[in-house]
């Protein structure tokens, strides 16, 4: 992408991070670390890659996105709000009683959410079903699903991977947000996940490895995925957990807790500074 477009993506991603922090702070709970690591990819999907229309969120021909790592919905909600699916006001009452935005994605109540998710491993299977439906109906929409690296410890991920490959779901693109950390520590200390690329290759996937916080690499991989025929693609995206906020980056402790008032202030100062630089 050209510099102008790159700058635009970076600005939106920065705003997605700002609204992620707003949501988690006002909720006094939630999952900032994995939301921030995924923010660039979610931004690219909604603002460049996917054929979606916030005015027609149920369009049967739209591309679908299933956030299998549903706990990282603060970033998804931020992207959806910025895209125009609903007001950013909703984000300030995230997780509150009576709020539209639930702690994990709820397809019944939230425009733009294609699948309820949050119980790890399950979104990937639903994405397979959506991709299969497209094949059955001869439609050319694509299905994207994002899962966590820790989530790959769930057996269902591999049931789904076997199915996707067997059914030749080349309209399915899985994205692993490989930030290296899960609640109990480093993924390879908790459960030997590697070699993840070899595992997916063994399951019949086209495997692409990228820096998931780099828009050029994100674009290149998603474009490449569209050219792959006869098999599904998985993008193993190395990312930085907590990306964009100095004290959260690569810290396991920021998986699932909200910043306090002082930390919130620092986070917004850092992000607004980044945005200021981007806006020149």
């Amino acid at each position: 992408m050209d510099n102008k477009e790159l700058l635009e993506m970076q600005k939106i991603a920065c705003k997605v991070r700002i609204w992620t922090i707003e949501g988690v702070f006002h909720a006094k709970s939630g999952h900032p670390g994995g939301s921030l690591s995924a923010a660039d990819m979610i931004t690219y999907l909604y603002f460049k890659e996917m054929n979606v229309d916030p005015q027609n969120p149920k369009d049967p021909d739209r591309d679908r996105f299933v956030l299998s790592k549903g706990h990282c919905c603060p970033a998804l909600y931020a992207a959806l709000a910025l895209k125009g699916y609903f007001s950013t006001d909703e984000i300030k009452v995230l997780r509150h009683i009576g709020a539209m935005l639930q702690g994990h994605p709820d397809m019944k109540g939230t425009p733009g959410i294609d699948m309820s998710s949050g119980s790890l491993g399950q979104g990937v299977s639903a994405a397979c079903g959506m991709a299969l439906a497209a094949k059955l109906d001869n439609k050319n929409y694509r299905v994207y699903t994002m899962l966590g690296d820790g989530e790959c410890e769930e057996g269902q991920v591999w049931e789904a991977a076997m199915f996707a490959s067997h059914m030749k779901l080349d309209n399915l693109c899985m994205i692993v947000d490989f930030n290296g950390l899960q609640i109990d520590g480093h993924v390879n200390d908790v459960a030997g996940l590697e070699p993840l690329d070899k595992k997916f290759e063994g399951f019949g996937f086209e495997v692409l490895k990228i820096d998931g916080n780099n828009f050029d690499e994100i674009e290149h991989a998603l474009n490449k995925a569209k050219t792959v025929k006869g098999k599904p693609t998985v993008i193993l995206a190395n990312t930085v957990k907590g990306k964009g906020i100095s004290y959260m980056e690569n810290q396991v402790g920021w998986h699932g807790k909200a910043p306090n008032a002082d930390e919130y202030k620092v986070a917004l100062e850092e992000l607004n500074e980044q945005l200021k630089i981007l806006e020149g």
Partner: protein
Amino acid sequence: MKIATRESFGLALCELAKTHPEIVVLDADLAAATKTEIFKKAYPDRFFDCGIAEGNMIGVAAGLAACGKVPFAASFAMFATGRAYEQIRNSVGYPHLNVKIAGSHAGITVGEDGATHQCCEDLALMRTIPGMVVLNPADHYEMTEAVKAALAYNGPVYIRLGRLAIDTFNDPDTYKFELGKGITLKDGDDVTVIATGLVVNEALKAVKALESKGINARLINMHTIKPIDKDIIIKAAKETGKIITVEEHNIIGGLGEAVCSVTAEYCPVPVKRIGIEDIYGHSGPALGLLAEFGLDAEGLEKRITEIVK
């Protein structure tokens, strides 16, 4: 006519598929046993074997439903509702997706395969999921209509299927299935027997035999476990004063407790639950097990007599 309800299910799917292109069928390597193979042969392009991976099968069904398909996902009751319970709860129940789950080989009449495959907990598991309809048809004609009703309902439905070939007893010319409405098969004032599924016909034989002993029992066929027919239960409680429930399921969590919930809240009367008394089954021929667990006509006649006296 003797026919297993799993076979009736497969035939019903085929019939409905003719006019409902949105129907697709999933199985988990048990198509020959669940009888979805009948559909598979007729509609190979709309049948998907997911392999021995029930959790994924339910998730795939959810995704298909989210895109407008009406998936029927089948496996043994044990694996469909037990193994994949949480997938059903979170990927199907919570978003209230239009997925139909069929659990075959339910109860002890699985027979020789033994306890690991004899699911006596499926009704209990499925009852706890908000918005889930739970159906347990008693013969071929009822299953045929139940599958139609499941299709007509926009939301998740669990249908229990049996392995054992059983006699039909409903009259196809007059039979009417209404979701959530029990059917009075025999009137009576002394006691009400409420039965469900495969043992309804056994209960019917038992209450008929009891007439000659001077016991005039009412018999209700409760094909829908959820939503349970409150009205028919309250009426029976008021008019007969005591209720006996009969199910090929653990007495915990199934029909018996569903009936008790209604009587306790609206019209307290003594209720005796006949079923699997919180134990595991074991290997043996289906009919032999039914007799051993006291769920055949003879056993039920004896138990009902004891309870009434």
